[in-house]
Each structure stands twice: as C-alpha cells, then as structure tokens.
C-alpha cells in the first residue's frame, strides 16, 4: 500500500531523514522504533505530505503522492493519528468521531452510523461518553477516540505516532491489541513508538531509526530477541 523509496527530508537547513526506504502492505503491522529525535515523527509527517521530501519518492496504492494535499490524502485512505492525540476539546466525542468521516467521499449517513456502532463496540467507553466534550476525556480515552476517529474514515493505511505517549500500561496494551487485530483484519498499520519492546511484541516487522537513518530492519520477533542490539540503538 505504501512504498517509500530513498527519501531525504530536511526542515530548513537541517537534514532529518537520510535515505529512508520502507514498504507497508495490507494485513501487516510495521513498527518504526528509535530514540527521541531520531526522525520518527518527521517520517509520518512526510508520508502525510505535511513535509515535502527533498528527494526520493513515496507511493500510496501504487501512485506517487507528491503534491497531493494532506487532507486529500487522508480522505483517500492514508490516515495519520498524530502525536498527542489532537482531540478537538470543544467538540463532543461523537462530533470528534464523525468530523473526518463526514468528509470522505462515499461515506453516507448509514455507513457513518454503522462505523459509530463498530467503534463503540471496539472501545465501549466511547459509547458511554459520546456526548461529553473531547477535552474532558482522560488521556487513554482520548487515544482510543483518536484511533476510532481515524478508523471512521475507512482507512487503507493507518499511521500512528506514539499512541502510548503518557498513557498507563494497561491502556497501552488495549490500544496495541486493537491495532494488532486491525492488521489481522487486513489493514496496513505503521506504528511509530518509543516503547520499543512493546512495539516489537505487537508488530510483524520493524525498522530501527537512528539519527535519521534506518539502522536495522527485520522481522519484529528477531529484533525482539536481539536485546543487546536494541538497547545499544535505543539507549
């Protein structure tokens, strides 16, 4: 679904990503792990076209994404759950859920209603709190809402930027389990995480990002066993 070929990304004069390549296919959960400042967030922002790569190519469903505006990419099914969840505080949980799906072509009122039921089944707490303002949810509830908001848009690819940030371990497990079952159902999932071991336990495939370069790639359980390597890269 996503092919990234040798991209270089700079923000201003500062190079952030160097010669990064990766593949993302349906039904696979791929994780990108790395220390703070390794370029993980920039990688996702580049995939969503918020940042333009200096060189290299990105294809989504076989077509180059260069020049497509971020909101159109999202509507086409490349959906990015940003860091910090970004729940609109002044809108209700329900409004937050619908706000993206409302703008996707081909999603009529019925499919949106079905989507709501599906997400309420996935995270029952959202159903209980659907009329509460998004700003009044706990961090964990907000993260579930952020994931559900993205899923409401019927994504083909789901990008997640550190969903574990600031959450209790139990909630992190709930979220990662949900991501795992989404991938098993055929979604392409790219999970950027700082909690390397948890991410490796969940993912099929992993890339270690170090100072903007892919330092190591392979099946997640192989990397998981290689504890010494992980620790030397992640510090």
């Amino acid at each position, binding site marked *: 679904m996503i092919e990234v070929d040798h991209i270089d990304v700079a923000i201003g004069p500062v190079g952030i990503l160097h010669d990064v390549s990766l593949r993302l296919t349906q039904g696979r959960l791929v994780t990108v792990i790395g220390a703070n400042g390794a370029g993980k967030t920039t990688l996702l922002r580049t995939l969503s076209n918020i940042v333009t790569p200096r060189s290299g190519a990105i294809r989504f469903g076989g077509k180059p994404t260069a020049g497509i505006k971020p909101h159109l990419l*999202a509507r086409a099914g490349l*959906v990015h759950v940003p860091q910090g969840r*970004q729940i609109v*505080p*002044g*809108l209700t949980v329900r409004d937050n859920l619908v*706000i*993206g799906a*409302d*703008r996707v072509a081909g999603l009529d009122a019925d499919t949106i209603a079905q989507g709501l039921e599906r997400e309420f089944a996935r995270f029952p707490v959202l159903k209980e709190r659907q009329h509460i303002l998004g700003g009044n949810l706990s961090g964990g509830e907000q993260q579930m809402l952020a994931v559900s908001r993205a899923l409401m848009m019927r994504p083909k690819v789901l990008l997640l930027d550190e969903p574990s940030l600031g959450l209790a371990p139990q909630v992190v497990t709930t979220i990662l389990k949900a991501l795992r079952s989404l991938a098993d159902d055929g979604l392409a999932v790219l999970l950027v995480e700082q909690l390397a071991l948890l991410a490796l336990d969940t993912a099929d495939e992993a890339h270690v990002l170090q100072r903007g370069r892919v330092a190591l790639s392979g099946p997640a359980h192989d990397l998981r066993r290689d504890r010494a390597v992980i620790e030397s890269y992640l510090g």
Partner: protein
Amino acid sequence: MTLLNFFQLLVSGIAMGAIYTLTAKGLFITHLATHRLNFGQGDFLMVGAFASIGMLTAGVPAPLAVLGVLVIMGVLGYLLERFAIRPLDRLGDRAGAYSWVLTTAGSALILQNIVELGFGKSAQYAPPLFSKTRDNVINIFGVGIFFEEAAIIITAFVVVGAFYWFLFGSRWGKAVYAVAFNPEAASLFGIDVRGVVVLVFVLAALMAGISGVLVGPLVSVHPHMGLIFTIKALAVAAVGGFTNPVGILVGGLLFGGAEAFSNYWDSAFGDLYPLLFVMALLAVRPSGLFGERRADVR
C-alpha cells in the same frame, strides 16, 4: 430624563449595539480560526453601506440590493484572504508575525479611496430599508420607537442566530473549531484548512456587509467612516473576551447602550466615554468580561 426618553435611547442603543455585535462577530471568527483579523472590518462595513445606498437609490428593490451587497462582500472577503493573508502564510517565518495588520489595514485604505472616487467625500444617508419613511414610528406599550430601528434589531438578532447555528450546529462550524484548535491535525482528519480560512474571511466580510446595510439608515455614511467602526468592533470583541461568541453579543449590546446614553449626556464627546469604559475594564480584566477560558460555552 423621562422614562419615555430612557426607552427610546435604549432601543437606539440596542440597534447600534446589535450592529457592532455583527461587525465584531466577523473579527471573532477569523481570529478564532487563524489568529488574524481584518483591520479594515469597519471599511468593509462602509463598502457594504455604500453598495446598498448605490443600489437602493438606483431603484433596485431592497431584497435584490441586499443580495447584491452580499455577493460583493463575499467576493471582497475572498480577495482579502487571497491577496492580504495567503501570501503571508506562504512566506511563513520570513513574513513578520503581524504583517497581516499592515496588509489588511492597507486594503482598507484602497477601499476608502475607491469609494471616495465613486461617491465623493460628502456624507450620505441610506434610504430606510424596512419602512417607507425614516420617521415611521410604532407604539409598543405606549413608547414610540422608530420602526426602522426595531426592524434592524430583529434582523441583526436573526443574523446572530444564524451565525450561532453555523458555528455550533453545522459541519463547517465544527471544521472551524478543529482548525482553530490545530490546523495541521485538522488536515490529517480530512479538513481542507485553506478552505476553512477562505470561509471565515468570506463570513467576516458578509457580517461587515450586513452591518453596513443595516447601519446606512441610522448614521451618516462617508468613505472614511470605517476606522471608528473597526475600533468599536475591536472594543466590543475585547469586552466579550474575543473567543467567546456569547460574550461578544453581551459586549455589543452593553457598548451600544452605553454609547446611546453617553451621547445623550454629552453630544460633543459622547463616543469617547464607552471607549474609556472599555479601557478601564480591560485594565482590570484583560481577558474581557467572560474571558477566553470559556471559549467552549454553548
């Protein structure tokens, strides 16, 4: 002051206050979504007033004239965003943080001179919109008030109501809130951020235009009247707490009322006292009567 006098002043004050509210709503919505606002908002009001005078005196029926004004204002709002706001966003950090003050105020100067070229420097009155003559008086509970003023108040409140519905009830209003919260995140969930920015500037221009149409029969209209309306709308928005739509309504009515009474006491400097009052209020409560904390009130 007799009780009769009091009620008549109150009605005049509410009429002007409702117009200030409408104008200030325009400032509020662009500030909410983009943290920018049109320093020529009062001049947009002036253009709306002249466009309506021009069409009404040329014999265009009032509903068509209003429609015409709305079209003109919508186009002006789009052009303002396109040429005074968007290029600065493209420049990013290379444009100063407050360059939009200059570009919007500069656009206002251009508008003033264009209108002066077309209509001359002298002050004009718009023909009444709702009644045949200016001094058509109706009796409510024994108090005679100008029909025109009553109709203006009702119209202004209907427009404010429509504005609230848009902001809190429509999917575009929700998009405005999402962009106000975080434009980058909004684009990630499929919202056309640039479209929303255009929308709020068009809406702001429409609010100024409607204000202009309504104010035409109440005050004398001239090409350089805009600045004082910009200042008063800013004062009203500041009293209301800038990001609080309900606060702006309260601020507008208070300001309009205060102005009517202060003009009654002192016809030479009547406009001064409400502004001094606002300054004093802001010195004590810098975030206005209601404050930004309560921006999410429904």
